[in-house]
C-alpha cells in the first residue's frame, strides 16, 4: 500500500517542484515505485522540470472528468523505469478539481506505487486544499527567509487543522557563507520558529538551475551537493537515519592549502 506525501510551502518559488522531482527521482533510484502528481493545475511545471513535457497526452483533469483511464494519463520517465508522472492540465484552472476527486485519484494510485508524491501549488486556496486532501503526510519546504518562514508557519497550522499531523521540514537554498556573516537565518532559527522535525537541508546550488532548465533531475549529477542532499532526504523518507551533510565544508583551493598547512578555518 503506497504512501501519499504532499510537498507544500505556502510561499511560491521556494523549491516545491524541484523537491518533488528530485526526491521522486532519488526514491526511484533507490528502487521504489514512485508516481509524481502535479497539483498545480493551470501553471504546471513538474513536467518541464522532469523533461517530459512533450510526452503528455492526457492529464489529471482528463482522469477526473472521466475522459480517460488513469493508466493512460501516466507518463513513464525517460531515465527510470519505476518513475511515473501524472501531469496537470495547462489550459484549465484549480477549480476544475475538488478535494474529493483528488483523494479518489490518489487512493487509486496506492495499490500500484510505493510513494505518491503530490506537488502542491503555492497559496492556501483551492489548489492547496485539493493537493492535501488525500495525503498521509506532508513535507513543508521553506527557504531561510522571513517571508518564507511566516508562510510555512501558516501552512503547518492549516495542515494540522486538516488532520495531517506528520509534517516534516526541508530548509532549502541555504547559503552557508551568508549564514556565517549573519546575513541569513540558519537552520536552527527556522526550526525554532516552525517547531517541526527537520527532514533535510538543501544548499543553494547552481547545478539545480542548470539541471532544471535541461529537464534533468539533479540527483543524477555527481557534482551537485543539492543532489546529494535530496538522496539523503529520500532515504529519510524511507525511514532511514541519515546524518545531515556538512555544508560548511569548503572545497575550494584555499581551503585545501589551509589544510596542508594545518590552519583551522
Amino acid at each position, binding site marked *: 500500500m503506497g504512501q501519499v506525501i504532499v510537498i507544500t510551502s505556502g510561499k511560491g518559488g521556494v523549491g516545491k517542484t524541484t523537491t518533488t522531482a528530485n526526491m521522486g527521482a532519488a526514491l526511484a533510484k533507490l528502487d521504489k515505485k514512485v508516481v509524481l502528481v502535479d497539483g498545480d493545475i493551470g501553471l504546471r511545471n513538474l513536467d518541464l522540470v522532469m523533461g517530459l513535457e512533450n510526452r503528455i497526452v492526457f492529464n489529471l483533469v482528463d482522469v477526473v472528468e472521466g475522459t480517460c483511464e488513469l493508466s493512460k494519463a501516466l507518463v513513464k520517465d525517460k531515465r527510470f523505469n519505476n518513475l511515473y508522472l501524472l501531469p496537470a492540465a495547462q489550459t484549465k484552472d484549480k477549480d476544475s478539481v475538488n478535494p474529493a476527486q483528488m483523494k479518489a485519484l490518489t487512493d487509486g494510485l496506492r495499490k500500484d506505487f510505493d510513494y505518491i508524491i503530490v506537488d502542491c501549488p503555492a497559496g492556501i486556496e483551492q489548489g492547496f486544499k485539493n493537493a492535501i486532501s488525500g495525503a498521509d503526510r506532508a513535507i513543508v519546504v521553506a527557504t531561510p527567509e522571513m517571508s518564507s518562514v*511566516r*508562510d510555512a*508557519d*501558516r501552512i*503547518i*497550522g*492549516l495542515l*494540522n487543522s486538516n488532520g495531517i499531523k506528520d509534517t516534516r521540514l526541508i530548509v532549502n537554498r541555504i547559503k552557508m557563507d551568508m549564514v556565517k556573516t549573519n546575513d541569513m537565518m540558519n537552520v536552527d532559527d527556522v526550526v525554532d*520558529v516552525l*517547531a517541526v522535525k527537520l527532514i533535510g537541508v538543501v544548499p543553494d546550488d547552481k547545478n539545480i538551475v542548470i539541471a532544471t532548465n535541461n529537464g534533468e533531475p539533479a540527483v543524477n549529477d555527481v557534482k551537485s551537493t543539492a543532489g546529494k542532499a535530496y538522496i539523503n532526504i529520500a532515504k529519510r523518507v524511507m525511514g532511514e537515519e541519515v546524518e545531515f551533510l556538512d555544508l560548511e565544508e569548503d572545497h575550494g583551493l584555499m581551503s585545501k592549502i589551509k589544510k596542508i598547512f594545518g590552519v583551522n578555518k
Partner: protein
Amino acid sequence: MIALLIASDVTFKGNKDGLTLVLKETSTIEKILDDISKKISINKKFFKVDVLKIDFKGRNLTKDEEDKIMELINERTGTKVEKVQEEIKVPIPKKNYNVGLDMSELALKAFCEGNTKFYKGTMRSGQSIKHDGNVVVLGDVNAGAEIICTGNIIVLGCVKGIVHAGSCGDENSIVAALGLQPLQLRISGIITRSPDEEPKMLSPELAYIKDKNIFIESIDTRYKQH
C-alpha cells in the same frame, strides 16, 4: 544688512510633502509666532506654492495654537496651508523594572473570575483566538497569530504575534508571558509595539496600563525586591 543668527525656537524643514515646523519644546506660543514671522521673510522659497502641507514636531500644540500658526502663515504669504493627516503612531512602551509594583495590587484588580479559555500548543501564523474572558496559551504565539479577548492574556511561551487584552475597554487587563516580543501589544484602546532592536535575552514580563500608558515589568522573581 547683516542678518544676525539669533537662536530661533522654530526650524523650517522642507520634505517631499511640504514643510515641517520643528518647535522648541520649552517655547511659548508668542515666541513661536514671532519666530515664524521672522523666518517667513527669509525663507520665501517654501511659500511659492499654492497649497502647502505643514506638519509640527517637537512642542505639543493645542488646536487653537495650531490654528493661529496656520493663519499667520496664510496671512503673510498668501499660501493656503493644510495640516498633514497624522499617521497612527505606534509607540514603544516604557520598561519599568524598578517600580516595585505590588503584585497583590494587580491581583485584586485584574484577576477576577471570568471564564478562561485554555489553548494547548503553539499558535501559528493565521490562527486567531477571540474570547470573552481570559486566555491562557500553553505554548508560543507566533508572528501572524492573534489573541483578542476582553480579559487578561497569559502565555507560557514567547509572544511574537498580536495580543489584545481588555478589548472591551477594561484598562486593568494585563498581558503576561515568558517572553514578550509582540508585533503589537494592545490593552483596551492603547497600542504599543516591540522596540526595533531585538533584546539579548527574553525574560518573563508583564504589561499593564498606568496613566494611560503601557508599562512593562519583569515578573522574574529574581529581580523583585521584597
